């Protein structure tokens, strides 16, 4: 049991480090949901099934979904801005 617990703590550390250090935005939702899954595993092996359930529904589903939607929105805004900038510079040239 204890080896399993230490191994999962290691996974938590690795997962958290990945989330904090990853720079690529598009991969974020997946990393976050994996991290959420690891956290809920941790709660499971430390005898906290209530928290594990809470973490799995929020961390592995709810939160990544909102991140996904937010990123999609940011990307669309980005495109819109770029298009606007291009049309602005096009006008200036004229």
């Amino acid at each position, binding site marked *: 049991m204890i080896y399993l617990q230490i191994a999962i703590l290691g996974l938590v550390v690795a997962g958290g480090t990945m989330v904090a250090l990853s720079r690529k935005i598009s991969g974020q939702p997946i990393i976050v949901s994996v991290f959420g899954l690891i956290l809920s595993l941790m709660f499971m092996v430390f005898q906290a099934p209530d928290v594990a*359930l*809470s973490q799995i*529904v929020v961390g592995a589903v*709810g939160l990544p979904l*909102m991140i996904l*939607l937010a990123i*999609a*929105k940011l990307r669309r805004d980005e495109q819109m801005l770029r298009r606007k900038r291009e049309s602005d510079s096009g006008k200036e040239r004229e």
Partner: protein
Amino acid sequence: MRRSWRMLLFFAGAAGIVCLFTLAAEPISQPRDVRNRYATAIISETFSQRNITDAVSAVNFDFRGFDTVGEEFILFVSVLGSLVLLRMVEDRKGKVLRDALEPWRDVGPSDAIRLWILAMIAPKVTFGIYIVTHGQLTPGGGFQGGVILATAALILYLGEGFTVFRDVISHPATEIVEGAGALGFVVIGMLAWVWGQPFLTNVLPLGKAHELTSGGTMALISISTGLEVAAGFILLLYAFLQENLSPVEET
């Protein structure tokens, strides 16, 4: 401030924080017996006084129910704040909107897939309701069950797209449910006043252990929390989805 300076400042601080935590390891390195007091007291009171089996739910909805009131209102205001920011307050009716994220945009889901997805909704809702109502018996309760209920709405979106999602989950109604969930908790707390007891006192019959009706007001609080959480997450989903709509370009 230059970034290199910032990092220097941060690393100095981080090194200091590591030292501080090392010095504060006493509860970890030499745990004392006093640390068990609260847990022991709660575990024995849970049964002698409340007839329920999940001690965590007992702490959440009874012993420390007042904390949960506060936590629930954090959720409440965060959801309201997000709605304000994402301009959900405004009425956007009348505009023809196109879902930019439309799942199955090009092909359209086959009927088999749609059926399959929709068939998942009923069990999901049942499961959510089960988790909400069995909080005092098994792991679960309003918080977890509420999120599960909200994911049922997500499945609806995946299967049928935003328009159906919007029609089924009417935004004003969901907002009312959210407010009702928050109000419900407070009102159940006030119920104790009728019996001349302090706020949040568990005044209803406690029922028998291992039964759904055990725990008195706990089940009611769990349900109202479940409503609040489910409605809150659905509203967030709604708001973030709506951000990804764009007016149909006229051609």
